[in-house]
């Protein structure tokens, strides 16, 4: 990854799920792209304590 602000959504192979990754490192899954983009664009408020959400994965800083 570069240091650019990139939002990425992977359609998880073999499933119907989407996994989104914000440029801040937060990740989440969703069942449809409308929900996925809504979540991604909610940065930095992915949710009140998104770092404690079970789907959050901390990434190393680029």
């Amino acid at each position, binding site marked *: 990854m570069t240091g650019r602000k990139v*939002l990425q959504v992977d359609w998880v192979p073999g499933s119907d799920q989407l996994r989104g990754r914000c440029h801040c490192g937060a990740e989440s899954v969703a069942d449809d*792209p409308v929900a996925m983009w809504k979540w991604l664009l909610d940065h930095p408020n992915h949710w009140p304590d998104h770092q404690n959400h079970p789907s959050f994965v901390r990434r190393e800083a680029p």
Partner: protein
Amino acid sequence: MSEFVRNQWYVAAYGREIGRELFSRTVCGESILFWRTEAGAVAAMSDRCVHRRFPLSQAPSHLAGDTVVCGYHGFTYDQGGACVAVPGQTRIPRTARLTSYPVTELDGFVWVFIGDRANAGSTRVPRAPWLDMPGWTAVSGMEPLAARYSLLVDNLLDLSHETYLHGGYIGTPEVAETPIVTRVDEEAGIVHVSRRMADAACPPFYAKSTGITGRITRWQDIEFTPPCLYLLHSRIAPVGVLPGADGADPDAFHVEVVYALTPETEHSTHDFWAVARDFALDDQGVSGFLEENNRTVVLQDVAALNVLERVIAAEPDGYQELSINIDTGGLAARRLIAKLR
């Protein structure tokens, strides 16, 4: 409110379309007159005479050296759009000036800036270098689309439709079946959608042009720079053949499919398309095949979108849609376009 994204560059024409004949094209609702000066530069100005609005592209309007003479009463304009002569009198009204447009000729396209011309210099003109580059051969065309620009954006950002709308040409079952990765570069304002098929049937479009007979590894990497330029980086190779660790990729066939999406009116669009390849460079047969085949594919989209436009135009605003995974890239593009407004 107008739906057009202003203060942006748009492809108005191929360079080959503009010569010493007056040429008119409407971009974002503005009728623009194009012609080439004797020195070879492209001039672009309003296609409406300031006197009584006669279209300057309409005979008997004509070029006289580096001026345009209106065919109705003879107002004459220079390449910057300034009126330099009027009939019967020597005083030229101060306001006798056509709106002129910044123009850039690049990669075989004539780009025109729509908006406040003060912003032209600081606004990016995206590139499609393969259209005019050694080592590549390109074919191209433009089809008029009687549908709004946003329908073409949706169409191109979701290639799963190839399987259904373009079966037997470029579509195979694997396109719709293969998951996509969508990336949005927020700073550059670019959407990438990539679909990498490890083991796919080879559609006729690629089988006949490359000569590959078996199954293929097929990569489709979309790069859309809103509002106007769409690139599809297409890589075709015998199944299992991948680029080397150093990036060298001598055993694959590369095709750069380029679209320029230029709004004409709120309900019509100029659908510029081009196909550049890095193989069979001098093979006229391959050029003819790709040109004919791609045009057929574009016309399949045009037919479908023309129908869709009529349906949507008859419905109240805010009609219902339902998005699924294949629409991830299209939704990203819509958001970037909305940000440009």
